């Protein structure tokens, strides 16, 4: 078992569709089926060296590319939302879905270790949502997404938000097949998060700085955060906003529109 967050081989993952009235169906999968142990060879008469030079995450990356192809063919803009716990991913989603409902077709995959609380919040907006509970797992992977989209069946020409587990370390390594990765940080966190968790900030294309309505009460240096962010990722885009006051949200909506159009133009 992992000492840091408790991932273990017995972790059961469940993926289920959540409606406004509750659970629709539940699928349990044990992601780590161990075969019967193979007895250790007493003699080495069949000793054989094989060369692989294979990426450890080869399977995840392969399945991620398959997901990406599915999204591309269906003109779905898939976004992977990552952050620490409590940065406001779900609040941003709720606000976005309420504000833009009617303009775009949305679908949501929620990732949490336990509970369907976040999916319930999303379901109450009327947007189709699937909850993935990873049990003790600390990140979503491309296989979970592949199974979740089968249940969700997102329609063509839509936007799919994938809310990853609140964790700035592990989800950085796992490509889900998304077109863009959006990292969210709130101003109640430290400005130096980008250099503390460089893998996540390097692999994201957009950084949303949330809860800016709290700035007057905090000693938070926005420019310092952006400078750290650019140090790790010179091409990083930034949007400052507050889901509470609504400040900056129009920039985020413009960004979504722009990315959606690009998704279209790929196929033209």
């Amino acid at each position, binding site marked *: 078992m992992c000492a840091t967050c408790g*991932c273990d081989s017995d972790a059961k993952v469940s993926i289920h569709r959540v409606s406004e009235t509750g659970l629709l169906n539940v699928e349990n999968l044990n992601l780590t089926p161990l075969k019967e142990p193979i007895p250790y060879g007493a003699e080495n008469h069949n000793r054989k060296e094989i060369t692989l030079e294979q990426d450890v995450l080869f399977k995840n990356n392969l399945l991620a590319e398959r997901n990406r192809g599915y999204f591309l063919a269906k003109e779905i803009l898939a976004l992977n939302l990552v952050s620490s716990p409590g940065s406001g991913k779900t609040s941003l989603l709720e606000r976005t879905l309420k504000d833009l409902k009617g303009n775009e077709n949305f679908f949501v995959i929620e990732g949490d270790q336990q509970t369907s609380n976040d999916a319930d919040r999303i379901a109450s907006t009327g947007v189709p949502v699937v909850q993935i509970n990873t049990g003790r797992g600390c990140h979503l992977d491309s296989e979970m997404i592949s199974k979740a989209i089968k249940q969700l069946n997102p329609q063509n020409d839509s936007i799919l938000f994938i809310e990853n587990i609140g964790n700035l370390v592990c989800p950085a390594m796992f490509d889900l097949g998304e077109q863009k990765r959006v990292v969210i940080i709130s101003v109640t966190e430290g400005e130096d998060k980008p250099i503390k968790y460089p893998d996540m900030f390097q692999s994201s294309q957009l950084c949303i700085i949330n809860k800016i309505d709290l700035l007057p009460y905090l000693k938070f240096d926005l420019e310092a955060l952006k400078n750290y962010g650019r140090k790790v990722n010179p091409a990083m885009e930034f949007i400052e906003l507050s889901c509470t006051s609504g400040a900056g949200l129009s920039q985020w909506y413009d960004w979504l529109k722009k990315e959606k159009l690009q998704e279209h133009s790929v196929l033209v």
Partner: protein
Amino acid sequence: MHEFSIVMSIVETAEEKVKEHHAHSVESIDLVIGALAGVDSHALDFAWDSAVKDTVLQTAKRNIIHVPARAKCLECDCEFEIKELFDVCPLCGEPLLQIVQGKELQIKSMVLN
């Protein structure tokens, strides 16, 4: 941490290869881990023992080939070793770097028996 998932992926590949080659188990395995692969050696050690239990890797000797990270400056083209993703070019001070080495996370080879 994700190191457990990583070891589980290695176990899965090892199980497949053992089956494919009609072997019994893995005697040794060589892994290549880059300095910027995002894998913590201590966490990997910790995850390894519990993840390989009752698998073909249980008694395997694990060799890790560590690869230092190198980057190329996109401004002046010079190549140099880096320690962190946010290091800057030692010649021109620019942060625009292309990582050329150090992200590797590979199973290089295995000895089956």
